[in-house]
């Protein structure tokens, strides 16, 4: 990670703002196909003064992985754990109300924070077949808070109407390369936006209407946040793999 990069790169913006949803003492989960939340959880452990319970889909419980894997379900993410908390266990924990913060993936997000990860176009004759249901349909309505991210902020990804509602219940937070949304009264509202873009840009590139009354430019990463992310991605490989301009 070169030192002349701007305070916010698209990559650091997403990972850091995901990390900022982590709260003290809470049970927090990152799943499959979820590199940014994996990095965000590991980053929060290093950047913030409080502790929290980090569970992941590899069975990890407060793990101390010896390396940061490419796959967010890599068993190395359970290294150093004193227990293996398997898939049935963390799903049951969530459905019985014990999951405070759950990071979940999405292809499309609407203004209520519902998601589509199933198909673009008609489900039965899809233009694009997407990965599918995954955790969302069960975890989004049952986790105390769920947060998602999109590496593309556009009217294709943040839409007025989903092609298919894979998971309802509504995201508590959504992070893109240029904006952070949070839920208020069952609608996503803009919490903050990337200081290098204008509020108009965010509005133009968002398919659903949103309230921006209380929105402010996103505060710059702290030295500890920058250091934590750098320590997780010393040679910038994750940043390059994310392929964000």
């Amino acid at each position, binding site marked *: 990670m070169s030192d002349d990069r701007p305070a916010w790169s698209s990559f650091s913006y997403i990972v850091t703002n995901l990390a900022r949803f982590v709260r003290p003492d809470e049970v927090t989960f990152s799943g499959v196909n979820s590199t940014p939340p994996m990095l965000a959880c590991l980053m929060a452990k290093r950047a913030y003064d409080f502790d929290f319970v980090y569970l992941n889909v590899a*069975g990890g419980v407060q793990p101390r992985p010896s390396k940061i894997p490419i796959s967010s379900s*890599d068993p190395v993410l359970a290294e150093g754990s004193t227990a293996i908390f*398997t898939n049935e266990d963390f799903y049951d924990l*969530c459905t019985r109300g014990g999951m405070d913060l759950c990071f979940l993936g999405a292809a499309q997000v609407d203004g209520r924070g519902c998601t589509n990860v199933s198909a673009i176009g008609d489900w039965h004759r899809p233009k694009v*077949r997407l990965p599918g249901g*995954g955790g969302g349909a069960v975890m989004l309505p049952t986790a105390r808070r769920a947060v998602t991210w999109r590496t593309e902020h556009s009217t294709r990804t943040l839409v007025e109407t989903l092609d298919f509602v894979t998971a309802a219940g509504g995201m508590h937070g959504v992070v893109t390369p240029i904006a952070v949304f949070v839920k208020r009264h069952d609608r996503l509202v803009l919490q903050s936006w990337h200081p290098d873009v204008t509020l108009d840009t965010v509005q133009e590139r968002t398919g659903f209407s949103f309230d921006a009354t209380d929105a402010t430019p996103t505060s710059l990463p702290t030295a500890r946040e920058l250091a934590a992310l750098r320590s997780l991605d010393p040679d910038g490989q994750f940043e390059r793999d994310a392929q964000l301009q």
Partner: protein
Amino acid sequence: MPIDPGPKFVPLSELAARVPDGASLAIGGSFLHRGPNAFVRELIRQQKRHLDIIKQSPGYDLDILCRAGCVAKARAGIVAMEGNFGLAPWYRRAVEQQQIELEEHACMTLTAGLRAAAFGVPFQPVGGVHGSDLARLNKWVSITDPYGSGQQVWIVPAIRPDIAVIHVNEANELGDGRVYGTYNWDRIMSRAAKRVFLVAERMASVRSFQDQPELTLIPSFMVQGVSIVPHGAWPGSCWPLYEVDYPAVEDYLSPQRALETHLTDAPETKEHVFV
């Protein structure tokens, strides 16, 4: 319990030969981790057809089976190569071109179906699902709690695979199997299926199982067939023995690369791996 004809320990080719065309097959592991991929490739070599693949998070396994035309139906939660590889291209094409039937689940609704089978009941309630189009799509029923909580809960019908194939770290000569690290969904798969096949990285002593019976995931009396295949999860990982072989996955995904070449590159093609 039905005792399978034939010995319990067999070469991989004989184990795969016991899978009839049209069988429903639950495949252990998750994405590129601890899947019985050598067994999957052997199904392709034997040109199995019309398989019904059941797995919460398949990737390489379902993709290569679609690529080889072995699949009639898939019941899955999330399908991807994962890592940086994104979607599973041959699976995606098979669904988009309607060459296979997809029963799309959330990982936990598929698990609920497996739980119903494992518990010997016709259906299983599952948390969440409220507001999801998956319920309509799969014609799931919701029930109001007859005990007066007022809760509406979705129920999923039993899913009982003909066979579960589980890749374990170690098996002993009786056919018990154990796994290191997370067993993903393999425990409930092994309880839900009519038959269980194990593919093991290596043999371990019966004594070592007797010393720590708590570590055994699948007791031998539930197992009808075992093959020993070192590196059998390739190109995926098998913790703590080996990691994902990312160049090999990249190779597999490159359209220039013939499927046959990939199949011949696989470790199970080396004679010595058979018991």
